[in-house]
């Protein structure tokens, strides 16, 4: 039986892991490769690196740590942040990353998703979507880009469906309202998206307790849960999350220690 995935997400800036609230107030959370090895040992099913490095000159740092992660960690990982072209996408896959996620560039150039899916296969094309409840679109959820700073006027549910049609292999759904609050995933949003599309959905934003993760899977219908603060600051290990889920009948992959 396919296991529900627990995926630690590492926001990376200038080659260091950071974590903030509502995309702001960043705190240092360590070296990407050390963190990756730690979560691998705890039984993480996958890793996501979201690069929020603003300066263009430092972009090569992304390729450096992705390469080092691929050398030391034998589980899949996804890299996102600043991908604008098919060539950017190819470069990230070449470092040893299994998938790349696209967010802002999908809005400014939806054809990019079609092209990447055609060139590299849907299985490695992750579309990251950051909706916020604004009430200004038919579903009430509006897509934001630029790390949550810019509203697009796009309806989140329409957008998710378009991305699936264009060949996205997976949706990484981060609720702007819930992210960093530790108050739980946005269950209505997660449920609406998982019911709508036929591709896997990774729920993201808001995990503060083990019960929140359980709810994202059972009530939200997510195939995977992205976790950050809850594991970065030692509240719980990935292994503890899986024990909790397994005790409640959710299929998970356990690693023997």
């Amino acid at each position, binding site marked *: 039986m396919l296991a529900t995935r627990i995926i630690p997400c590492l926001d990376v800036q200038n080659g260091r892991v950071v974590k903030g609230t509502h995309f702001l107030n960043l705190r240092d959370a360590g070296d990407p490769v050390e963190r990756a090895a730690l979560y691998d040992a705890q039984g993480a*099913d996958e890793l996501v690196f979201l690069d929020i490095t603003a300066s263009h000159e430092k972009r090569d740092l992304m390729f450096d740590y992705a390469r080092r992660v691929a050398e030391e960690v*034998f589980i899949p990982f996804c890299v996102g942040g600043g991908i604008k072209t098919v060539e950017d996408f190819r470069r990230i896959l070449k470092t040893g990353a*299994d998938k790349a996620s696209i967010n802002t560039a999908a809005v400014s150039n939806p054809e990019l998703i079609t092209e990447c899916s055609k060139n590299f296969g849907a299985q490695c094309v992750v579309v990251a979507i950051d909706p916020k409840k604004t009430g200004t679109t038919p579903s009430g959820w509006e897509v934001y880009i630029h790390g949550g700073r810019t509203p697009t006027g796009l309806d989140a549910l329409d957008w998710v469906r378009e991305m699936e049609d264009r060949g996205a292999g997976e949706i990484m759904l981060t609720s702007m309202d819930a992210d960093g609050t530790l108050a739980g995933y946005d269950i209505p949003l997660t449920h609406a998206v998982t019911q709508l599309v036929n591709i896997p959905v990774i729920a993201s934003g808001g995990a503060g307790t083990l019960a929140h993760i359980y709810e994202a899977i059972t009530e939200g219908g997510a195939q995977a849960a992205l976790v950050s603060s809850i594991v970065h600051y030692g509240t719980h290990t990935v292994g503890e999350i899986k024990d909790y889920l397994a005790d409640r009948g959710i299929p998970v992959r356990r690693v023997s220690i």
Partner: protein
Amino acid sequence: MKVAIIDYGMGNLRSVEKAFHKVGMGGAFITDDPAAVASADKAVLPGDGAFDSTMLSLRRSGVDDIVLEFIASGRPFLGICVGMQVLLTSSEEGDPDARGLDVVPGRVHRFPHQPGLKIPQIGWNTLNFVPDSPLGVDLPGQNSAEGGPMAYFLHSYYCAPDNPADIAATTEYGVPFCSALHRDNVWATQFHPEKSGPVGLAILRNFARL
């Protein structure tokens, strides 16, 4: 021992190379040189993406003949993911006229549309190896009460060999499907052993020992 990881411009080759190095196979190397493949002890064909475009790349680069010659020599050969699918005769994916290498008679199918069954299958799923399969021996978690060893899958299509004797392992995803195959000196996995943690590394070690 030399393990040639065949480069034809597709696939995540570095991860495969690093994983072999991790299990002590320092002689694993990436190559697009036909002579280097021909002189290797074992060969690996990784693959990502679509069946038809992969076959096109194999034909354009002449790697299709290199692979067929290597397999005909009787030395151990391993296909991974789409590198498994192209060993079959044909596929439902893409161009209906695209032919595979036809080393293992059979067809590649798309997972069925079923309520709640997300496609692609992405994630860790359980491997049920046939008894005494050399690839499946001594895997971590094999005897655990928690359901057996798991490996990482990332695919929308799966292999259905015509001859059930070619199936080395099965996995369930909506339907039971062939997650590893074995025919004479040819081995292949639908999952990514290079991304399957300790279980995947053990499978690569088993292949290296064949």
